């Protein structure tokens, strides 16, 4: 068995006075694509923010390559090769597309590979090259999502966490991105992705976890989970239109 790159062990976390995650455990092995699905408010974003150090851990442990990273500030976790493309994109709106990408490669670990990563990005999303000098704030919603993904790739992380990566992207672009993700995982980037596009995520994923009200209630191979009765019930009840929604 490949050893786990990321181990989350009995983690409790949340916001000031609200405990959102209850004894959450999961692991992501090197080279894997792991999906994190669950209804709205289940705690998916909270878990990703906790892993990347934006939220403190009140109990449990998070390990990267066997070393504790919980309690480290976000920049130190990023320096160890963990990147998060956050919910809501969080681009630097007044800065140009290019400046946003350059900031993505802020860490020393990304230096020397910028040109190569940029080539990959411009092949995936040609529109970013066309609009390289435009302020990020004037891009369309979908273009901004592409830029957010691209900025995350620029860091050349070992573990890339994605929060709702396909939000607002056309099917064609999503396909292209999924293709790229397959290439990237084959190349050795490990991915943990949370999101609403359950069917698509589960098809891409090697393994998946179902999160409900802050508990991990189910885990297994992606396509297997897609057949699972409990997952169908959980998501069909809570997401209008069922597992296929939103389409993607």
């Amino acid at each position, binding site marked *: 068995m490949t050893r786990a790159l990321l181990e989350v062990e009995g983690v409790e976390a949340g916001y000031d006075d609200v405990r959102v995650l209850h004894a959450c455990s999961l692991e992501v092995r090197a080279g894997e694509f792991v999906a994190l699905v669950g209804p709205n408010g289940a705690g998916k974003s909270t878990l990703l923010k906790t892993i990347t150090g934006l939220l403190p851990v009140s109990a449990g442990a998070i390990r990267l390559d066997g070393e504790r990273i919980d309690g480290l500030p976000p920049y130190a976790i*990023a320096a160890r090769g963990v*990147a998060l493309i956050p919910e809501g994109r969080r681009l630097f709106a007044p800065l140009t597309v290019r400046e946003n990408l350059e900031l993505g490669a*802020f860490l020393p670990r990304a230096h020397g590979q910028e040109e190569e990563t940029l080539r990959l990005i411009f092949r995936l999303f040609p529109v970013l090259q066309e609009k390289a000098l435009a302020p990020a704030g004037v891009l369309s919603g979908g273009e901004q999502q592409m830029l957010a993904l691209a900025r995350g790739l620029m860091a050349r992380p070992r573990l890339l966490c994605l929060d709702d990566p396909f939000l607002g992207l056309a099917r064609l672009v999503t396909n292209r991105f999924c293709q790229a993700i397959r290439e990237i995982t084959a190349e050795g980037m490990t991915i943990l992705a949370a999101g609403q596009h359950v069917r698509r995520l589960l098809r891409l994923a090697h393994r998946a976890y179902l999160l409900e009200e802050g508990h991990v209630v189910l885990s297994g191979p992606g396509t297997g989970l897609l057949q699972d009765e409990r997952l169908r019930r959980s998501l069909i009840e809570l997401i209008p239109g069922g597992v296929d929604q939103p389409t993607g």
Partner: protein
Amino acid sequence: MSLNTLAQALVSGALLGCFYTLMALSFSMILGVTRGLNLAHGDLIILGGYLGYWLWSGSGLHPLFLVPVAAAALLPLALVWHWLFHRLPEPRELSSLVLTFGLSLLLQNIMLALWRGEYRLIASESLTGSLGLGGLRLNQGRLIVAAAALLVVGGLFLGLTRTRWGRAVRATSLDRDAAALLGINVDAATRTTFLLAFCLCGATGVLFATLHYLYPAGGIELTLLAIVLTIWAGVGRLRSVLAAGILLGVIEALTLAWSGPRWRELVVALMLLGSLLARSGGLARGWSH
């Protein structure tokens, strides 16, 4: 108004504008990284001016040499401010007002105790000569000070746009969490910003004291002007700050040349009002992600 007065008004307006730019830049840098308004900003500049005056009257050195000295002298205060801002409760936009209003009064009283209420000016002879340029007579001191101010503004622009540190500061002031996720040490960026902004206050203060009389309560007006310029230009928009600063300086100098000091405040107030009605940008936009 003769051509000569007009030209002189333009030059001194542009000079004043350089100051305003420096002042607004340091103010908005702190606002950017902390979301806190530093109401003691003008008082720190006046403090820098008094330090410059005190050193100049004691040593007789050329005022330009005292610029870096006063800049360095404010560094310890930068750490104090950073420490206090770090502990501000949310909403920081409001709690910072309470904190820095107190600090402003404290500084004013300290300056009153140390230098009493008398007006002071760095009236160095090395700055009083005048320079003929075509038919114009320009004050040599003002030109030197303007050159120094422009040099600092230029250096700051380069630093903020070209260096790794500058990019970290800009990213931190636009979106703290997003910057942290990219590996930027936002606390270190904030501390450096305080140190640099306070250096700028010290430097600006000495330059200011060569042109304007200092008095302990003089900082209030400077703080208000820094706020006005930040509203006009928006946080982190470097070129807009420079443009707004110089525009304000020139308009102020023209009003002064035209109608004397009576109308100055009124014109500035009208400009502020007009610009706020004309656009809903600036401060508000700088805060939102």
